[in-house]
């Protein structure tokens, strides 16, 4: 008797009871309904696993469940292929399409757990992306140097330029400051509120760097202007201190964090230029694909730039304030520069 078959559902409440008088004969299940009943358990299991995994992460599943996922996914996709050819139950096909799509993107859409992804980023992706951007980095560096030179020469020629170029960065330093005042800024040090200073510097610089990158989308014009402005400010300070004969000390003061920070800003500018270039001159790729390729490459660089700026802020907020010996400052700054250069242009990015 058909009623005893396992795939019979309980009768729905809204259905009429089996006729008046003698119970009517039940229709034998359709082949497509049998097909569904045999596989429904798998689909529901997959649905349940996906729900749990999506709500938190893949870590919410046990090893056994993780291994079952691809099998269940394949079973569901092939069931969808069969159902399309044999079943006319629209709701079933819609359900299977939705479930397969969710499972597909869970399995193929993202790349595993966060730990290995981070390791891969530091071991290979970041240096490789920086290495690939070497031309843009060189261009960005040239802009920075050009800006610095211009700022230096302008302020050397007429110190009235200083306030225009230094803007809000002057911290009370003006062309009228005495040598002693200028010196104090470099060496007064202190240990009060350093973590505040560091966090402010980090957030401010990282925000500027991200903006520099994003503005690259507008054909890189705003990015190059930002880099030039940075250089001008730097040059203006150099000239101000050089006028008082303490340029070397300023370089030491800047050097501690500057090698890291300016490198990071140069890279952010390079990423912006890369994007702008891809928008303007896509080359052999279509403009859409060219932009996507440039965006991904420079996205990796930008993640790294934020890390670099974090390091720079620590150096600036703590080390610079605590270390007031010139040669030690040069040593730290120089060592950082060597470390970054070796990391980016050494073997790390060339592996594989």
């Amino acid at each position, binding site marked *: 008797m058909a009623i005893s078959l396992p795939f019979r559902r309980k*009768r*729905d409440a*809204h*259905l009429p009871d*089996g006729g008046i008088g003698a119970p*009517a004969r*039940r*229709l034998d*299940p*359709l*082949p*497509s*309904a049998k097909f569904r009943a045999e596989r*429904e358990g798998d689909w529901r299991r997959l649905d349940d696993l996906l729900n749990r*995994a*999506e709500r938190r*992460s893949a870590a919410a599943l046990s090893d056994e469940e993780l291994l079952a996922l691809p099998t269940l996914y394949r079973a569901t*996709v*092939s069931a969808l*292929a069969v159902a399309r*050819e044999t*079943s*006319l*139950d629209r709701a*079933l096909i*819609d*359900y299977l*399409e*939705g*479930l*397969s*799509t*969710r499972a*597909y993107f869970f399995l*193929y*859409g*993202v790349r595993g757990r966060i730990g290995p992804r981070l390791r891969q*980023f530091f071991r290979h*992706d970041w240096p490789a*992306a920086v290495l690939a951007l070497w031309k843009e980095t060189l261009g960005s560096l040239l802009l920075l140097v050009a800006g610095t030179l211009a700022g230096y020469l302008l302020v050397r020629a007429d110190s009235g330029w200083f306030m225009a170029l230094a803007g809000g960065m002057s911290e009370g330093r003006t062309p009228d400051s005495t040598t002693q005042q200028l010196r104090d800024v470099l060496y007064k040090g202190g240990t009060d*509120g350093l*973590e505040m200073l560091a966090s402010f510097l980090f*957030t401010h610089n*990282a*925000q500027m760097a*991200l*903006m520099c*990158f*994003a503005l690259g*989308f*507008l054909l890189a014009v705003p990015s190059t202007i930002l880099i030039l402005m940075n250089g001008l400010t730097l040059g203006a300070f150099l000239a101000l201190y050089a006028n008082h004969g303490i340029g070397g000390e300023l370089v030491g003061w800047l050097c501690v964090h500057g090698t890291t920070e300016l490198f990071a800003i140069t890279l952010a500018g390079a990423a912006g230029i890369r*994007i702008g270039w891809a928008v303007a001159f896509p080359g052999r790729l279509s403009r*859409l694909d060219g932009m*996507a390729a440039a*965006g*991904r490459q420079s*996205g*990796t660089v*930008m*993640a790294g730039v934020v890390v670099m700026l974090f390091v720079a802020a620590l150096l600036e907020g703590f080390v610079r304030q605590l270390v007031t010996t010139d040669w030690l400052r040069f040593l730290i700054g120089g060592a950082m520069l060597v470390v970054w250069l070796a990391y980016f242009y050494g073997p790390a990015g060339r592996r594989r």
Partner: protein
Amino acid sequence: MPRETRRVRLLVTPEGVPLPLELADAGQRAGAFILDLLILFGSVIAVSIFLIYVAKSIPGQAINHVAALLWTIGLFLLRNFYFTWFEARPRGATPGKRALGLRVIARHGGRLTLDAVIARNALREVEAFLPIMLMISSLATHGYDTLIVVCGLGWTAIFLFMPLMNRDRLRAGDLLAGTWVIRVPKRPLLPELSADVEENAFTEAELDAYGVFELETLEQVIRQAHAPAVATVTYTICQRIGRQHWSDDGGPRDIAFLQAYYAGLRGRLEQKLLFGKRRADKHDRS
């Protein structure tokens, strides 16, 4: 189910099965973004209140520093990594997108990598945050200035309406990262309609009255069980196949009749399907 085919892209899985992906439309995207903005503002306010409360309730200068530190870093992280954090996770969606059943995928269904997510969200800086911050800061320092407001709004509008200007509904960030935003609504598995119906012998001639299109429409009518519609459909079918049926105006009796006819029709059409004949609708005479 009628689909708007202009926004559907086909993805062929490695198993060789095509899956239709429905791109999210501009309204859904905007809705998700507004939800996310509200969540962002809400959490900034909540964190601020909490930190002020903590700083006030614990005496001493040090706690003020810690609170200010947390606030600065927290604000930065929220502003820059709220979207990135959620979209890089397996679900590929921020809470706002999740609420609207959307997710971010790599264009053409490849892997969605972290760098793409970073790139697509870094551009929000230029699209939305920069002009907003500019307007707020200029308002705070110089008072109301029409020129700045107009420039800010104009700037935002260029990026805001960008998704409306291309077929794939891409905003600048999507262009740059090579991503799509699609709809993946969670559909429940609806009960099998052909199960457990009475044997109600229809002749082959009666079952040959309709095709697949009518079958799917009938399926919807039964599932929705809207009494006037059920009554009308019952009447129409009885007319067409020339059957006497005592209707109870869309009540259980009519639904039972429709279910029986649905099961019969589906069985017949599926049988034909196995022999390679797909009858599209009632006008199809094959």
